């Protein structure tokens, strides 16, 4: 997927003025945030569970090569073929080769953010293959030719009226705005696609070292259909998604749906191991698993390593006051919200996503809700440090900070400077005692007035009070 994170400020501004989007985002907040709070209360020891989950993820990340090789060995023993991809381009090439090897023409896909990283659909289509997204949200986006704006609810930015228009135009059926009818229409349109497909592509929420299995959580059943009906199944996931045992993955499953959609468990959890047996009446004959690095291994051993614990629940964005107001598209790549503000710079380069580490108020809500205790504000702060260290901030900002630092180290000059500024501001404010415009910070004064200073600096007041 193309990176447009450099346009963050412009897009965020436009989205704040987009009333339809604002209404859609409100809904997300009420459903996912409130829903999560209710199901979290079912657990007697939520904190203990978070600690255990973080520990499982850390244990894997500290021995990632060992767990990956164990996974590969078990998966291969069951007849799966494990592929390793260093980059997004590698994934695209590998999947195209698998398709060619098995004479594949028609592909159905269940939702996968990793394939969004790769721009896999466009690549396969350019090779003459038919690719059908089957998750309802992703299908709508494929029709609308838009990227997802949320990792769990990809189409959160669209209203049912938008979707009704789109379906009417693409399906040539009478328009309906009934949500149940829209869902049935999509089911009826997509079902023949499942039945005719030669290959199913899925992500993998987890891969299990103990058994060589790929685990997929879905609600719609499209994940099950995509991995059961076609004769070839390709699962694509990041190298960090490995989990040691079935018990460990069960611990994580107590957190993932609760944190994501406010469900105690998703409708379907599928643990897929190997290929169809000789006597089996259904299931794929070929099972390929593609493990993608794409910058992940670079984070190991760095201060950003805890980011690799992420299980992609989306709770951090659901609870983020910035995401809640600007939506996912403003972030300009696959992963929005706080987790995206760390992942995007880490994967596509800090210089290509300068605003993202700053797209946070540091309120800390993301770290509080994260089921695997990723210290997101700390990681964002780390990226801000990095930006300054690498001189990536704009020259005005750097000059202002240098001036500040120079002044702060020279008390006499500092006192003089503040006296001057305070009096200047008083002069600006005039008799109204309020500053309606301030040159250089119009972004701040456009929406509010600033009370004018009283005329003396803190130091002056302090001194006069003491004597």
């Amino acid at each position, binding site marked *: 997927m193309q990176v447009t994170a450099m346009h963050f400020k412009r897009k965020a501004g436009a989205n704040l003025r987009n009333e339809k989007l604002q209404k859609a985002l409100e809904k997300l907040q009420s459903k996912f945030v409130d829903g999560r709070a209710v199901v979290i209360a079912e657990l007697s020891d939520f904190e203990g569970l978070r600690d255990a989950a973080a520990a499982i993820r850390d244990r894997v990340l500290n021995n990632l090569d060992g767990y990956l090789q164990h996974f590969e060995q078990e998966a291969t023993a069951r007849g799966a073929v494990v592929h390793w991809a260093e980059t997004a381009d590698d994934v695209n090439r590998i999947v195209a080769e698998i398709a060619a090897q098995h004479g594949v023409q028609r592909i159905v896909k269940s939702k996968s953010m990793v394939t969004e990283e790769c721009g896999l659909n466009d690549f396969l289509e350019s090779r003459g293959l038919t690719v059908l997204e089957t998750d309802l949200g992703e299908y709508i986006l494929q029709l609308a030719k838009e990227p997802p704006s949320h990792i769990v609810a990809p189409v959160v930015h669209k209203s049912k009226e938008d979707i009704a228009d789109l379906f009417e135009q693409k399906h040539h059926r009478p328009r309906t705005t009934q949500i149940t009818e829209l869902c049935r229409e999509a089911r009826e349109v997509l079902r023949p696609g499942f039945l005719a497909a030669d290959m199913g592509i899925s992500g993998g929420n987890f891969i299990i070292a103990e058994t060589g299995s790929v685990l997929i959580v879905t609600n719609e059943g499209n994940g*099950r259909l995509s991995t059961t009906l076609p004769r070839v199944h390709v699962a694509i996931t990041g190298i960090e998604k490995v989990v040691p045992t079935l018990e460990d993955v069960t611990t994580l499953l107590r957190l993932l749906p609760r944190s994501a959609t406010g469900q105690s468990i998703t409708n379907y959890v599928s643990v897929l191991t190997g290929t169809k047996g000789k006597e089996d009446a259904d299931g794929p004959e070929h099972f390929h698993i593609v493990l993608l690095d794409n910058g992940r291994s670079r984070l190991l051993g760095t201060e950003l390593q805890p980011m690799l614990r992420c299980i992609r629940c989306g709770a951090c964005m659901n609870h983020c006051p910035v995401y809640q107001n600007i939506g996912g598209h403003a972030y300009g790549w696959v992963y929005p919200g706080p987790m995206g503000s760390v992942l995007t710079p880490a994967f596509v380069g800090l210089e290509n996503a300068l605003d993202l580490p700053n797209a946070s108020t540091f309120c800390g809500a993301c770290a509080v809700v994260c089921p695997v205790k990723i210290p997101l504000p700390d990681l964002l702060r780390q990226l801000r440090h990095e930006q300054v260290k690498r001189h990536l901030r704009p020259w005005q900002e750097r000059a202002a900070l240098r001036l500040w630092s120079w002044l702060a180290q020279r008390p006499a000059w500092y006192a003089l400077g503040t006296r001057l500024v305070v009096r200047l501001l008083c002069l600006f404010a005039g008799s109204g005692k309020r500053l309606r415009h301030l040159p250089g910070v119009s972004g701040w004064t456009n929406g509010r007035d600033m009370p004018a200073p009283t005329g003396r600096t803190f130091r002056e007041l302090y001194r006069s009070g003491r004597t």
Partner: protein
Amino acid sequence: MGARERILIRIAAARGTTESADIGDAIRRHSRGPMPRIEKDLVPRFRDRVIKLACDVAAVRAVNEAPPVAARYLSEHHLPPRAVCWPELNALDWRSAGIDTQARAARGDDMVGITGAFAGIAETGTLMLLSGPQTPATVSLLPETHIVVLEAGRIVATMEDAWDRLRSEHGKLPRAVNFVSGPSRTADIEQTVTLGAHGPYRVLIILVGVQAKSL
């Protein structure tokens, strides 16, 4: 050197050693995380949870009482008395109850699917289905109506207990372990939950081996 080696070397370098840790031992221990408290009486708990998940539930004393219950359910929902059925369950007398069953994997136009389940999980009201020659995975997935015959004795407290039972009864995992928690659903449009996405619209669970009044 290929991508695999380069990735593994980068990971090892970040760890500060090129030797892989022995992780086989940690895996074999199967240690459990913090476990939820589940009441002793698993059947009522399971029943309450599946109802919350929008399943329908019936209880019978013996498995041969299941076909008439299924037949009644189909007629109440104005569904045809024809079903695709797990070969494992086809020995039951469906015909006398008026249901025409075919023992095979499901096709796109099957309206009703009848399956058993390896286990029920009381914690979340989840069914655990194993794929296999006698238990094709598509039967619980393609039809709009899914009827499940579940022995009450197969209800366990947690998913961990279900894994233990699978290890002791089967040793290794089948191609697909499918955990099913209610009819398929989506909330993609305006976060509004809608039942019946790509899988079944309704799920009937017939619990076998329970007195109706014990529920």
